[in-house]
């Protein structure tokens, strides 16, 4: 009895609440509980339906082996679809506001350059290109032959060159050397040869 009384103590503390009707204020659609009854029975019946054997549903060969890959591929594709450029990348402020104008001005510029191009006779670019190719070809030819010659000469030992020059040189060669030897070449020669050697060479040579 004491418990019951204490259970009702709250009534004294909540006079406003107790004035409000305890009648259920909620309602349900018409004949809801009648249909709910049937729905629940149907659901229970469906739940109790025995599952058929797996053998009754033949699957393609290696179906379950390939299934994870298929799912992964599908997930990857869907992830790509879901990529939102708006969230992944950002553009400068007001980029799209000025984009249209910038594209239009670019198109105008392109049109102008096309007009200028049209004023130049069509044979000029071809002849200019042919001239450039000709000059490049010549320089390439001469440079490459000098390069090959120098490379071959560097592989010949010095003493063979000296022997060759002693046997085959002529008076005209001295004149050629005097005309073509450079300052650096002279210095190099003077480092390797003493004054006595040069003097002896001059006295002994018959040229």
């Amino acid at each position, binding site marked *: 009895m004491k418990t019951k009384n204490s259970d009702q103590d709250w009534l004294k503390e909540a006079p406003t609440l107790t004035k*409000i009707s305890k009648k259920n204020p909620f309602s*349900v659609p018409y004949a809801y509980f009648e249909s709910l009854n049937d729905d*629940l029975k149907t659901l229970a*019946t469906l739940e109790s339906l025995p599952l058929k054997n797996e053998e009754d549903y033949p699957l393609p060969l290696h179906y379950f082996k390939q299934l994870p890959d298929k799912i992964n591929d599908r997930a990857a594709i869907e992830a790509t679809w879901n990529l939102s450029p708006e969230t992944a990348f950002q553009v400068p402020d007001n980029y799209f506001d000025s984009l249209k104008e910038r594209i239009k001005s670019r198109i105008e510029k392109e049109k102008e350059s096309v007009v200028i191009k049209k004023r130049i006779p069509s044979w000029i670019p071809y002849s200019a290109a042919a001239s450039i190719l000709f000059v490049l070809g010549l320089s390439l030819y001469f440079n490459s032959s000098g390069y090959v010659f120098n490379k071959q000469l560097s592989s010949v030992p010095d003493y063979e060159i000296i022997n060759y020059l002693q046997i085959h040189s002529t008076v005209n060669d001295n004149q050629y050397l005097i005309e073509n030897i450079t300052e650096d070449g002279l210095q190099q020669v003077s480092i390797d040869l003493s004054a006595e050697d040069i003097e002896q060479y001059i006295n002994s040579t018959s040229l």
Partner: protein
Amino acid sequence: MQVEDFEILEKFSRESTRQEAFNLLINKYQQKIYWHIRRLVIDHDDTDDLVQDVFIKVWKNLPNFRNDSQLFTWIYRIATNESITFLNKKKKKNNISLDDSGGRTLAESLVDSPYFDGDKAQMKLQKALLTLPDKQRLVFNMKYFEDLKYEEISEILGTSIGALKASFHIAVKKIEQILSHSD
């Protein structure tokens, strides 16, 4: 005459009368469970889904039901857990949703509901109840509207009677304060 729980359980234990037992169970508990859930989740359609989920769980798990608790407290416990889980999910969905796709709040469901026939005072009371934490609202509903005993609520919720009493009194005080200060 209402069928006793032990009769339902007895019939359910036999394969031949299992379906009949379940029909009896539905007839006996569907309205109680419906209103228990409806007062918590407010919206009729959400309640309808949950009621079906609850009875399917009952159907599936009744073979494992042990007689160490009453059948009605066991069904109420399932209904309560389903409802609280639903409310938590709904809150989470509403919190993470940046637009309106997260769904309506309980208060919005209450105001928009075509199935609310109460007067202004009852609407005010329901709105005040929605300011309470879900578990406090649950205790209030079970005690105030469903007239369950603390012992029964204690068995259903697995909470001590003392804690339930405290929870109910706090809820009553809050509601009284809200109601007396409005208007």
